[in-house]
């Protein structure tokens, strides 16, 4: 019996050693997804980034991912599982993974973490984000040109700074074209529920909006817009397939270059904690082709995109008031990033009460 135990112990030790050895040969880069990797939106965009890492650095790294991980405390188990299984660098790709990521990072000081769209860092936790609001500003301008009624519908997910920032930027863009422009906001309180997103889209259209934009993950709203014959914007991935005659453009997340860059830094031992926030000019988001709009609107959108890329135009530039009419930014003054990342107020012109 003792012999058997000894043999078992040795085998385990050898196996354990073997797995460490192979981990040294090929670094393990891991991803935690909030949705399914084929959702056609947010998570799919991250998975395309992961595939790019695999393609460009596949000889040095292997990638692994967990999908459909719920936000909140449940995420801790998922992240911890990856950290234990020998992942060297873990990307947690949803805002709601923030606290779980920080907590597990404290337990595993030797593992590096990267959290998308959050604002908490640690010696081994970096954050990265994309200036989606730049794209939303362009969408707002297009909406103001394309809408007959001057009202757009906005399907929002959760009242977090990221989403509030998007709503504000959309309105600022729209009002730069039509100062009377209005939006109606519906909070779905979910990132992913095709039925509910479709219901929200129907409710908004029934109340008279003729342009739809969304900050949720599936193509259901685009499909409803197509059925009802109005125009809409895609979110996170190019959703043109769901509405060939409907999509005006879409904000397409292109995380690949960032993932490759950070993985390379990790392999070179040069990884350090950063808070990266790139935008249109860096290619971390791109605009899907401007379709289903007249040429002058398209030209305007392209001009705005070019100005944002060159840095000539910053969406959050004064004069801007907060929703209650108090002054926020003076003429020519641009908002600092910290205010944007913690944004918990609406700008003037948003016809909704921000859920707090």
């Amino acid at each position, binding site marked *: 019996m003792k012999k058997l135990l000894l043999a078992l112990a040795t085998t385990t030790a050898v196996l354990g050693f073997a797995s460490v050895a192979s981990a040294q040969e090929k670094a393990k880069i891991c991803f935690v997804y909030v949705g399914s990797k*084929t959702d056609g939106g947010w998570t799919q965009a991250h998975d395309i980034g992961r595939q790019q890492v695999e393609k460009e650095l596949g000889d040095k790294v292997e990638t692994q991912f967990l999908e459909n991980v719920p936000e909140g405390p449940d995420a801790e188990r998922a992240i911890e599982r990856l950290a234990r299984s020998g992942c060297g660098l873990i990307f947690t790709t949803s805002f709601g993974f923030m606290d779980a990521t920080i907590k597990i990072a404290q337990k595993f000081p030797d593992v590096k973490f990267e959290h998308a769209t959050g604002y908490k860092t640690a010696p081994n936790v970096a954050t990265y984000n994309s200036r989606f609001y730049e794209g939303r500003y362009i969408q707002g301008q297009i909406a103001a040109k394309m809408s007959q009624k001057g009202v757009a519908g906005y399907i929002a997910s959760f009242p977090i700074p990221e989403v509030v920032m998007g709503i504000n930027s959309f309105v600022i863009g729209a009002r730069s074209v039509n100062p009377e422009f209005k939006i109606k906001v519906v909070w779905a309180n979910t990132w992913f529920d095709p039925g509910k997103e479709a219901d929200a889209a129907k*409710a908004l259209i029934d109340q008279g909006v003729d342009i739809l934009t969304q900050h949720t993950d599936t193509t259901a709203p685009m499909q409803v817009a197509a059925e009802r014959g109005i125009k809409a914007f895609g979110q996170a991935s190019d959703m043109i397939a769901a509405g060939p005659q409907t999509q005006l453009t879409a904000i397409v997340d292109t995380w690949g270059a960032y993932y490759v860059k950070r993985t390379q830094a990790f392999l070179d031992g040069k990884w350090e904690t950063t808070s990266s926030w790139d935008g249109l000019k860096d290619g971390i988001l791109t605009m899907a082709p401007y379709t289903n709009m007249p040429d002058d609107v398209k030209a305007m959108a392209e001009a705005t995109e070019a100005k944002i890329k060159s840095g000539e135009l910053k969406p959050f530039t004064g004069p801007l008031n907060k929703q209650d009419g108090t002054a926020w930014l003076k003429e020519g003054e641009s908002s600092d990033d910290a205010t944007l990342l913690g944004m918990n107020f609406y700008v003037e012109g948003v016809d909704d009460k921000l859920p707090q």
Partner: protein
Amino acid sequence: MGIVEAILLSVITAATPLVLAAAGELVAERSGVLNLGVEGMMIMGAVCAFAATQLSGSPYIGVLAGVAAGALSSLLFGFLTLTLVANQVATGLALTLLGLGVSGMLGESFLGMQGIKLQPIAIPVLSQIPFLGPLLFRQDAIFYLSMAIVAGIHWFLFRTRSGLKLRAVGDSHGSAHALGVDVIRTRYMAVLFGGACAGLAGAQLSLVYTPQWVENMSAGRGWIALALVVFASWRPWRVVAGGYLFGAVSISQLHAQAFGIGIPSQFLSSLPYVATIVVLILISHNRRMTLINTPASLGKPFVPDR
């Protein structure tokens, strides 16, 4: 089309899958079987309905495939819990997990495909009635079926000898067995019917509600259906009341938000759950009636003595 009509149309679409799945589960539970796998059977129905529609080009073939997929999933559950006498709660949960996983795998090649919608069928004459016509008589086949199924279940359970036997099996399988009722066979039929209904509910999701396939698209509706059965105290028409109430509050709160009434959206989002529970508890407040309706053998395994 007025706003009230528009709201009611959305409510019908949102409530139909809940009513269907809950009605099916009600029959299974009335026979004494607690199948927590509704979510799994529903999603299997959704993916198979979508796939069959894409392959055949006909959403009606899709509906049949959805029903078959739900029934087959429930057959697996029946085999494990009725023939092998496995624990019903654990097996039901496993069926949900299995359904979510398998459907994701089956559906992989159908992702992003343009769905084919099950078109409404206008019923002659009736569909011309102002207001009610377009709402109730210009609907898709699954809606008509859902109403027919609930009416059928009510008639079957409370007006037929077989229904009486089924309820007897659910109340006291020992006594029913002693009287010569084939408990296992009755339960198999009830479980299969429940699965078929859940599959039909799934087909509604991927062919009517949102004609597309995305993983996890049932998004918890199976669990809501399960809760509806309990809160409706196992009465078929109360399931309809509960399902439509839930749908109505869900849709109304979205409209309230779009209208900008300034009530926090988190509160509004919880309203459908709160309202449905409160109302169904109120209509089921008669404790004696509730006890009479509760299947006494619910969830208890039965091993016939031979």
